[in-house]
């Protein structure tokens, strides 16, 4: 051991704390969703009375809206990384719009189920698991929309700058997660479970 390993300062790079934190949060949230999905799958076909999953309509338009919002938010991310704040604001607004359309679609679906089909959370096991799982996802969409609207607000006030690109990226990770979870929920509820 005659050579002394010289420590190279200039190569000292650490992962961004925001990304690490958000990935950790996503892992935790995934566990919550896993439990709800498992409960849903376990209880498929176990309702002793009341409406069955056949009353559901496949929300294709909703799904397309939510999934495409992942693309628009990516475009927005790139825009702010290059410092084009106005473009960023436009794409960000579009993302929010798509999210709101998704929520409105869910609200319409729920109204139809509750008013016309008489399916509530206390009707039977299907109602219990359906509203819990879809509702849990909708809650995440709502939280995501609140965050998005905050960024939108600051953008309109002109407070968002290129230096915030990393924070925006972390937030969009969350939005991507919400979209990815929808793929799972959609598959389980509207394809496998129906």
């Amino acid at each position, binding site marked *: 051991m005659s050579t002394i390993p010289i420590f190279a300062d200039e190569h000292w790079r650490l992962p961004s704390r925001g990304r690490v934190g958000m990935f950790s949060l996503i892992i935790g949230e995934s566990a919550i969703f896993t439990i709800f999905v498992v409960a849903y799958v376990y209880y498929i076909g176990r309702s002793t009375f009341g409406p069955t999953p056949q009353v559901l309509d496949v929300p294709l338009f909703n799904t397309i809206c939510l999934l495409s919002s992942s693309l628009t938010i990516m475009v927005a991310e790139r825009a702010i990384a290059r410092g084009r704040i106005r473009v960023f604001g436009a794409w960000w607004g579009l993302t929010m719009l798509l999210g709101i359309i998704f929520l409105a679609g869910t609200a319409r679906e729920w109204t139809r189920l509750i008013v016309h089909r008489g399916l509530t959370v206390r009707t039977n096991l299907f109602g219990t698991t359906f509203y819990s799982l879809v509702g849990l996802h909708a809650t995440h969409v709502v939280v995501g929309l609140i965050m998005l609207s*905050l960024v939108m607000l600051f953008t309109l006030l002109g407070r*968002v700058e290129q230096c915030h690109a990393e924070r925006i990226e972390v937030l969009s990770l969350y939005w991507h997660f919400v979209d990815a979870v929808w793929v799972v929920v959609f598959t389980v509820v509207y394809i496998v479970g129906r």
Partner: protein
Amino acid sequence: MAETIDRETEHAQDRRIQLPAPTAWPIVLAFGCTLAAAGLVTSAGFSILGGVLMFAGCVGWIRQVLPHEQHEAVPVTARAVTIASRRALVERIRLGPEHRAHFPVETYPVTSGIKGGIAGGFAMIVPALTYGLIKQHSIWYPVNLLGGAGVAVWTNSTPAQIATFHWTWLLIAILIHSVTCVLIGLLYGAMLPMLPRHPVVLGGILAPVLWTGILHSFMGVINPILADHIDWGWFLVSQVVYGVTAGIVVSRQERIPTSQSLPFIERLGIEAPGLMDSRPDAGPPRNKEER
């Protein structure tokens, strides 16, 4: 070697370090969340108050971190720090051959354990019968104790009953005795490669004492009737006689080399005639099939 580092004194006194500014909003938000949940078990008023606090907490928090996180400058106070050790001597653990102290190059064959066990079994009869004669005035007493208790057929026998002669019990006792002696001998032989240095000490003294101790603690649970009749002193004596005899027999056996003395490549099971020496007893090199 002692080295005092007062890094902080070498800097100017008015140096300041930026740290996150203290803020009350996290506690407000946390308390709000809890109150909101507590409203479910108390009254809606709590939830409303919780909701208000949560909103206030969120707004306050956002104002703390956006657009830039708030910091406060903390002045650096000079405090000397000593990083030194009184333990200047560093010793490295030297890895020598003695760190595999029980690295047997030679050991006794397993069969020597069985031979020792058989010899010990015969030797053990002497103290056992002596005990019967002296203590109970009958050589059949220890025999019946083993034969009778071994199959647990008698319940409340008197010493006189045990002292009389029974054919069946004699046969059972011989069977138990011989099987146990051979098995223990086998175990002894199997353990020898691990501790090959002092077979007499190990097998003759240490093992019987441990064995007697284990039996003494367990016998009350396994066979309480037998435990009542055993004289543990004599029992120990006969065990030691067994062990010493077995140990002497074993130590007179010829040692065989363990696989440790073979070249590594041969231990792996690879035939490499060019790399390894032929065995001293092998004569001129031959193929393995011919051996």
